[in-house]
């Protein structure tokens, strides 16, 4: 009942996105609407020469109408024109602007489109490239917008850039009484700053509180859900690969290349499936323009999972005497059949776990007696697999809608990576090592309740590395 009432009050909010030419107005809309096909983006002036709109939906309900406008290219000329229109009259500026819009000179056709849209909207977002200094043209633009009788929220774009002059811009905006300023880098997507942008709009737009609240809630729910799903997908992959093993008869040890190839091929395919699922989860199209922001190409990891150079690329140190050739990336576990004391101790505590450990060990001891050698995916490869997938998810999470300057993300990425490349493998993975039946590589293997719980614990750990402290915890 209350929900219905809330729905009734949720009017669609009309937003005009304005700014100087080439400051990223279209990029802002692309990022907010998660629609990389919206409009046209280039690094040239006057790429957008018309007013184009898109509606943000929540569960199919239109909540925010965003309109992209042509850039204000000649604000000095326009301001001069407006002042001459007004002459010595004593009237409100909005009247002068309406007069201007009734019959705009051809010279200001683009500016007229932008101003017309501002007046038809509930709020204007003024996009600024903070890598620029505050120049006369910007002051004039703000002055013109200030005369349009609509609330204006300045949006500082490119704040993640190294030559951003955010403080200078904030100071200037405060001087002209614009205090609700949002920082929003359209290149490096950051959900917190998106949320803040909506919150800033909310402070100026009382009547649209329910609309903006609904949008904020939905966006945060989406992110939480995306992180959880992505972590679950990666965890499932890792458990599958950690658990898989191949039994080879000792006397066939020289002819094992075929079966090695088979195991490797399975692991590669499994990784590819996971990449496919992740891309779909994040609504990623192959022809997305931001494709080069991702560490992968054409939906695939370019380098082979089992190649030593891939390990090096991710800074994973291989143990001494890492296997080369066909067996690279695989570990041979012939002597003990997995019955290393450390592994058993890791299983130890709970009686239930001990029992399952014993029964699984029993089988494996029997295998060893029957002359089988156990082959499985090496720890290093597992680390690489985890690091690659986590990196991909992180890139997908932060994907803006323009190219990405990797340098700014580097320190973050290093920390994330080191969790997988140098720290010890998470406990659920070590557990999975003892349970070949958890892997889908085993025909009869796959989901089960114990595997499910290991998967969940691992997913929680992955989700934690994806959410650096302070950036929205996962319940």
């Amino acid at each position, binding site marked *: 009942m209350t929900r219905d009432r809330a729905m009734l009050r949720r009017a669609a909010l009309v937003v005009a996105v304005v700014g*100087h030419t080439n400051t990223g107005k279209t990029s802002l809309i692309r990022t907010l609407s998660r629609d990389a096909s919206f409009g046209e983006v280039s690094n040239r002036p006057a790429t957008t020469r018309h007013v184009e709109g898109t509606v943000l939906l929540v*569960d199919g309900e239109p909540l925010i109408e965003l309109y992209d406008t042509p850039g204000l290219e*000649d604000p000095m000329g326009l301001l001069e024109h407006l002042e001459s229109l007004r002459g010595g009259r004593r009237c409100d500026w909005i009247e002068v602007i309406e007069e201007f819009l009734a019959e705009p000179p051809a010279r200001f056709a683009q500016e007229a489109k932008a101003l017309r849209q501002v007046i038809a909207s509930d709020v204007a977002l003024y996009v600024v490239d903070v890598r620029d200094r505050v120049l006369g043209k910007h002051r004039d633009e703000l002055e013109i917008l200030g005369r349009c009788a609509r609330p204006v929220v300045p949006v500082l774009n490119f704040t993640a850039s190294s030559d951003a002059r955010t403080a200078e811009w904030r100071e200037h905006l405060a001087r002209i009484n614009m205090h609700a300023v949002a920082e929003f880098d359209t290149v490096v997507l950051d959900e917190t700053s998106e949320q803040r942008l909506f919150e800033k709009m909310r402070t100026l737009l009382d009547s649209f509180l329910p609309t903006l609240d609904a949008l904020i809630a939905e966006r945060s729910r989406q992110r939480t859900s995306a992180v959880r799903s992505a972590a679950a997908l990666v965890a499932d992959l890792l458990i599958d690969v950690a658990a898989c093993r191949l039994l080879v008869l000792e006397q066939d040890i020289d002819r094992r290349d075929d079966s090695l190839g088979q195991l490797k091929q399975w692991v590669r395919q499994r990784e590819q499936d996971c990449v496919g699922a992740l891309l779909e989860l994040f609504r990623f199209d192959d022809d997305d323009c931001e494709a080069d922001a991702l560490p992968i190409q054409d939906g695939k990891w370019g380098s082979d999972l089992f190649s030593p150079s891939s390990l090096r690329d991710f800074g994973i140190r291989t143990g001494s005497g890492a296997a080369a050739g066909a067996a690279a990336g695989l570990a041979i576990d012939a002597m003990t059949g997995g019955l290393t004391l450390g592994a058993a101790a890791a299983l130890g505590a709970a009686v239930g776990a001990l029992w399952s450990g014993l029964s699984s060990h029993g089988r494996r001891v029997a295998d060893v007696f029957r002359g089988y050698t156990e082959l499985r995916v090496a720890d290093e490869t597992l680390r690489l697999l985890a690091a690659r997938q986590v990196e991909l998810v992180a890139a997908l999470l932060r994907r803006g809608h323009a190219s990405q300057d990797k340098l700014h993300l580097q320190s973050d990425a290093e920390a994330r990576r080191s969790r997988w490349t140098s720290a010890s493998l998470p406990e659920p993975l070590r557990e999975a090592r003892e349970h070949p039946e958890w892997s889908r590589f085993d025909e009869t293997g796959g989901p089960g309740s114990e595997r499910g719980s290991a998967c969940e614990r691992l997913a929680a750990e992955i989700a934690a590395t994806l959410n650096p402290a302070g950036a929205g915890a996962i319940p």
Partner: protein
Amino acid sequence: MTKAGSPDPASETSTSGLAPRLLAEAVRVHEEALGAPLHEPLADEQGRAAGGGLERRIIARAGVLSPAPALRAAFASLRTATHIAFAAGLIAAVIAGSGAARLALGAYDAGPVNFFLALASLLGLHTVMLLVWLVFMLFHPGGAAVGLLGGVVLRLARRIALWLNHGPLELAALRAAGVALANPRLGRWTLSTISHSMWMAYLAGCLGMMLLLLGTRQYDFVWETTILSERAYVAIARALAAPIEFLGFPVPDAAQISGSRWTRPGELFTGRELWGGLLVGCLVAYGVLPRALALLVSLAGLLRARAAYRLDTSRPGFARLQGRLISLAQPVGVVDPDEPETEEAEEAAKPAAAIGGSGPVAIVGLEIEPSAGGWPPVVGDVEWWDLGFAEDRTSRQHIARLLAAAEQPPRAVVAVCSLAATPDRGTGAFLASLVQASPAPVVLVATDGQRLRERTPRGETEQRIADWRTLATHAGIPGERVLDLDLDHLTADSRQRLGRLLGGRSEAHAAAPPAARLAQAFHLITIHAEAWKGEPGMAERAELQRAIARLWEAEGGGAGWRSLLDLRSADLARPAQSLKTAARRMVDLLPARLRLDPRWLAAGAAGGAFACVAAAALVAPVAISALPAWAGLGAALSALVPKRAAPADDNRAIAAVPDLGPAVDAAALFAMLLALQGREETVIGRVLDAAAGTETHLPPLDSPAAVRDRLDGMQARFAEALAAEEAGA
């Protein structure tokens, strides 16, 4: 699970209730087993058309997917199996109940029945289990103990279902039911309901057998005690009997109770019908009624849990459907279209009058920051008339006034704009007014190329320069008067170029032609390569670059290449920083294609870094290996060269063939850059692009002969590209 999916056909298309959700869950399990969602655009379309939230759309899609009918059949068979298991459980409970009653009353000839023992054996376990259930529901609602019997029945149902059919879809249905039951509310109320049903059957069996026996046989009821007093016994019996009497059952009064105490065998007992009534009454009041109440509560809970059951749409199998089923935004298209541009009256560009004569050169900065080299820049013998910076309307008007009021007209006006800024109509209008107001020709110098490169990693520099050129042409400045010149990185050559354009005295260009100098440099590389044993070390590479730098140094233009790479001698004291700057600068000078190529990216970074080392060694001649710069070298390089995906080359890392390639590439790149210094950066980019060649997979360079081959090819391409550029200019 028993009541999973009501069989009425209406529910097959509806999206509310448990059945469609179970179906969606089963579809998810099925799709996850397949590895990817089924590709059925029609079903996706139906899902989208359903509207509402993601869950609703998922359910609608699942309902029309091709495996849906088979899954429904699987659920039907699962339901049958559950019914069988449930019925079996009920029958077993009835038998157990009647057996318990039979045992409680004992054999016919075993003498009188101990009333309280019989009651305890009938209701004891039942009451304890009911209390356990209650305690768990109240204090530990998630515990498994809420429905032990329910669990047994469900396990039996699973066995039966698997025995009936065990195709992949049946397994999916079974697993989906398991997922639904793992939902805490649904699971515990389902288990509770089944458990209570079982106990009700047990009590019914009890009651039936009891009535049969009491109706057809004659039992004597007594009570016994060793340590309790008679009074206590009477009180207990009366307390038990009071509610039962209230229900209308015949019960013994106090006297009859005390009279029923067992004394000796063979005695005659009275009040049999009263004790029998009390026993049946206890069974109803303390067994059937509370159990029925619990059953009703559980049923209500089950109904509510079923209605409240929702899919967990953050499960990967569901979440990944988002893209197909729900759009975040709906484009509304163009609402105010672009009007076809009214062809602006093309300003007839003033005939490009030659710049000459005497007088100062006026200079004005357009929305730029003064360059690091000072303002105005030092260019040969050019005498500047500084008009300042055009930032806003006031300063623009001020500059126009200054120009108009000039006593001695300047021989040229240089407008300096920043490549980092986007050319806009406002600037265009100012340039046009400048051309109109200026008595002398206007030259546009586009600086800040480095800043633009830092901002646009994808190499849109050429486009930006072309845009400025277009703007200038529109404003009446001919193309040849637009100069791409980085004022922050002025070299002797570029100063000369600007000076020539401004009509200064043309200094004799004594430098050797770049191709000849490059040939010397490449020869040096070959000589060094011959001396290397295996892959060269850092010191050897720096030594080579120092030798190359010396070739140009000899001309006295040494400062030129250093400023090209941002190497100021003051900075060399901070090696780590300047190493990084030089490496970065060199990489930035590379054309986009080479910057994206890992091989050239690495060569550029190394070339820049070693050039920095070479410069340090040239400034303060010491042994290269003694320089303190080495510490930062690795860091400088690794910061720049991202770990890009390398081709799958298992064998390369293992084969220990020395590869001189990286060292040769870096040195060659450095030499080519020195040969090109002073030219427009776009020209540098184009020539380097051509000289680098297009081969992507090169064999490792392992012999001096191979080195010579590669360098020869590069040199030929370089000469060709440079010739083409000069012919074009």
